[in-house]
């Protein structure tokens, strides 16, 4: 094909090319050790290793189920969604790209997406949000934040949350502890969706900054 461009002299020259600066992947050093291990476990799952999948299940299930439960609320539906999510992780593990971030982040994004899908597909979801939920959500939300704030060994993230401005904190708490989508939060607080996005984004980035300097 391109035989003309091949030749021993040139080859020798090429092999002497400097290989350039290479930044070794130091991983995501700020993460918890069990989650650093999870990256490797997920990579093994991507190659079809069912034993590794059992390992993965044990590593992620409390976080995934807690997150799904918060959004879906109904216990048996939460279980169904959790099963769907775990199966999706099994099926699509090969799509996980370690270069794009941590495995736990990837998994929890799927968990949240499927939980939101379920909530949306429920015919009654609008009623849930607009009629039933406000008081219920409020109660749950206040309850959880209180719990988080009261907890004797307050985690780094709850301490960091306490350091945020009230508006950013409220939006993030509604999204994570209240299990609301951004549109639901916007509707509930009566502010434009764009404002909520900005509050969540700025608040999250601020939290990350605080967390990474406190480590």
């Amino acid at each position, binding site marked *: 094909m391109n035989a003309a461009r091949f030749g021993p002299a040139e080859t020798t020259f090429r092999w002497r090319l400097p290989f*350039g600066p290479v930044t070794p992947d130091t991983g995501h050093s700020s993460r918890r050790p069990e989650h650093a291990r999870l990256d490797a476990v997920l990579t093994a799952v991507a190659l079809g290793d069912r034993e590794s999948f059992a390992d993965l299940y044990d590593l992620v299930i409390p976080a995934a189920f807690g997150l799904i439960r918060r959004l879906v609320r109904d216990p048996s539906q939460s279980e169904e969604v959790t099963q769907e999510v775990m199966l999706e992780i099994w099926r699509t593990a090969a799509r996980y790209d370690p270069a794009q971030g941590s495995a736990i982040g990837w998994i929890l994004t799927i968990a949240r997406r499927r939980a939101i899908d379920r909530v949306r597909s429920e015919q009654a979801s609008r009623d849930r949000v607009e009629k039933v939920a406000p008081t219920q959500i409020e109660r749950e939300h206040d309850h959880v934040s209180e719990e988080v704030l009261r907890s004797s060994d307050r985690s780094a993230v709850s301490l960091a949350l306490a350091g945020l401005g009230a508006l950013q904190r409220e939006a993030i708490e509604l999204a994570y502890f209240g299990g609301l989508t951004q549109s639901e939060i916007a509707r509930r607080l009566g502010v434009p969706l764009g404002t909520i996005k900005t509050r969540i984004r700025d608040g999250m980035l601020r939290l990350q900054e605080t967390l990474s300097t406190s480590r």
Partner: protein
Amino acid sequence: MNNDIHDHVTGYVLGELSEGESAAFEAHLESCPECRIEVESMREVATELALEQAEEPPDHLRAKVLAAVARTPQEGPRNGAITPIRRRPRWIPAGIAAAVVVIALVGWSMLGTGRLINSVLNDPLAVTIEATAGAGDFQAARVVFSESRSAAVLVVEGLEQLPSERIYELWLVDGDEVLPAGLFNTGTEGGARILIDGEIRPGMVVAVTEEPAGGVDVATGEILFSAPVDA
């Protein structure tokens, strides 16, 4: 940076985008390091927030999920497939070699290589080295080196699948010595995971060239990408 797409960062991390929007945003991430950093930062926080409310599901769910997994096939990567090809020893005629390779590939890759690739990728102490681009056009290439297993795996994405008369060849550069270290082609969508053939030590450099099918003993193609092995 496109403002509309950028606007999707929170929706993406919060899992609120539709399938199509998600895919579009992921494509955008490939070319937007700013968004990538933001997504990773936000996911880190999202993980911590999720862990605040971690909750154990009922015990029976585990058995249910594992049983479902046992009967569910996996999907390939969006942009790649695993295509290991064994280098042909010089003394085997090509025709026989082809048949042997097919048989060997099935047994050997499933039992031996698959397991070794797993154990390398599974090694918590394995080092990942991103490859430096040479003449090649690819999305991502990295070498995962496990010192404890004295083995390394090359993972490539978005590297064009070659026609049957051409092949990618791996090389181990050890000082002045350049040793062939395996042949491979990528899947239809440009992905591959290959066990690097040969004794690998820190200080060596892994390089890939394109060569005529069957491979060569002395590289003739340009270095498409390379990665120094470092422990």
